[in-house]
């Protein structure tokens, strides 16, 4: 029983780390652009598929971790600006329902792009996990990749992002635009550049979540949608636009899900949403949400 408990906790931690990376990108983009990118999960999926392909291509195990990072960067730097400049820039002033329809249409398109490029057969490439080997914790043999690398990267992203937004000029510029776009522009901030930068960071974070998740699971069509739904549940539970909140909620939902896997397997898929509904019933704006203007 104790072992099972520990195993569930470790699984939950690894899973939470992975979910956090996607959710934080989603919440950051919303906080600044005020658009919820329904296709955010597709960037996760494309990052995951590209990472698998690159790891297979380089072939050398000790380069596989670098391949994961390259995949995340490539998706962020290529798809991020294309989507933001090509599509989102046209709809910032439009009504919400239209913005939702546009990013939903993007989701439909990207899901098929992924199927056309990588096919529908499951893809599995775990070289990075094997590279790092295993370690024994409290009587359980666990992979170093899931025990240290995933939570480590998630923690690093959280700290760097918080430092970047609060302590650097560029980060404070982003926060200024979030507070009041017109006032920020009046003092000479180029809000178009801020939007572009933020969306690119968000896309890269989604792709990084995918790239890091890829070695631990087999990739199948549909993971993109499952990811956007779950990460929306996380950011909604936390309060849209809350970065630290997303981390805490990812942990809550990640642990909730993994304990369900071991103790009530039939409820596995339902638990994250039960948690979300329970929180939203009591706090409609989310655990860390409030009506104040500040969102990042």
């Amino acid at each position: 029983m104790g072992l099972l408990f520990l195993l569930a906790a470790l699984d939950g931690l690894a899973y939470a780390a992975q979910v956090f990376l996607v959710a934080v990108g989603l919440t950051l983009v919303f906080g600044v652009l005020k658009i919820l990118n329904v296709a955010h999960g597709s960037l996760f999926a494309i990052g995951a598929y590209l990472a698998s392909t690159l790891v297979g291509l380089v072939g050398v195990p000790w380069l596989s971790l670098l391949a994961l990072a390259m995949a995340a960067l490539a998706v962020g730097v290529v798809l991020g600006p294309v989507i933001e400049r090509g599509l989102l820039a046209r709809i910032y002033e439009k009504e919400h329902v239209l913005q939702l329809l546009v990013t939903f249409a993007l989701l439909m398109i990207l899901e098929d792009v992924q199927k056309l490029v990588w096919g529908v057969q499951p893809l599995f490439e775990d070289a990075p996990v094997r590279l790092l080997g295993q370690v024994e914790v409290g009587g359980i043999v666990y992979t170093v990749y899931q025990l240290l690398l995933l939570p480590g990267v998630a923690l690093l992203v959280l700290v760097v992002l918080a430092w970047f937004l609060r302590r650097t000029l560029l980060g404070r510029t982003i926060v200024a635009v979030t507070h009041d776009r017109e006032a920020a522009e009046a003092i000479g901030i180029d809000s178009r550049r801020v939007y572009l930068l933020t969306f690119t960071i968000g896309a890269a974070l989604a792709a990084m979540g995918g790239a890091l998740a890829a070695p631990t699971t087999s990739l199948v069509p549909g993971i993109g949608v499952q990811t956007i739904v779950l990460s929306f549940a996380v950011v909604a539970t936390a309060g849209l636009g809350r970065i630290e909140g997303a981390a805490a909620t990812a942990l809550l939902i990640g642990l909730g899900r993994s304990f369900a896997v071991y103790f009530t397997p039939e409820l596995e898929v339902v638990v994250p949403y039960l948690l979300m509904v329970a929180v939203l019933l009591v706090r409609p704006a989310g655990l860390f949400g409030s009506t104040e203007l500040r969102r990042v």
Partner: protein
Amino acid sequence: MRRLLPVAAAVGLLLLLAGLQPWLRFVLTIALSTGLAVLGIAMLLRAGQVSFGHALYVAAGAYAVAFARPHTGEGLLLLLLAGLVATGLGLLVGLFVTRYRDIFFGMLNLAFSMVGWSLLEKLYGLTRGTDGIRVARPTLLGFALEGAAWEWALFSAALAAALLAGALVASYLRSPAGEALGAIKTRETRLEFAGISARRVLLQAYVVSATLAGLGGAIGALATLHVTPLLAYWTHSGELVFVAILGGTGNVLGPFLGAVVFELVRVHAAAAFPDAWQMILGLVLLAIVLAAARGLVGLLDDLAVRLGWRG
């Protein structure tokens, strides 16, 4: 009377098509069932809200038929049951989601439908998972029908349901409650100032839209005689939203016009491009939305004006 003319023309055209080609009877029955679900989506779009999860109610109606079929042989009773089940589920979920607007409304609906889809897939003992459930052909009004007679009967039932639902929704939209629904989109605060609960107005529309989707799902289940979890999958919800935008939301004919065109194109196109079908839908959806077009109904309207039929 002028309003009834397009409806009469549409019914005439459908009957003609169904009579010309036997395989079209099946496709048009499916199209009418889709149209019913889309009519509900179009109602919510009036309020400026888009649901990415209404396939949940289509699946609820379809599975209600599949589960109840072993216990009753009468088709109309099955339709009634399916409508009740979808209404109940719509009320339950609606009480929660109508607290929210815009992003939350759309995404919470998506989340609920994906939970529904997962459950239909995972609870194998109850739903037989991805294999789905076969539905034995029921009787209609006590008549055990076969072949063409059955197809005509079901097509007529679907047409009757579509006409009834269209008429009811049209008169609802002209009523004060319907006007209040549109006001949620334009200015919700003023609605509240006028002493009308926006949430209650939206909840009414939401429950009606769930009923319509459930009815559509039930008719679809009777036409295909097979239900699978894919009915609740997000791609199906996406198709419903697509058809709503394609048909145009300005008029209750739009959803049905959109659904007929959609199903006729799909018969050929989805087989030709199985892995690019969603992409094509996405591209067309983008084009319509970004061009701020009013869908097929808008096109017909412009045509009528140009021909001098309407001022």
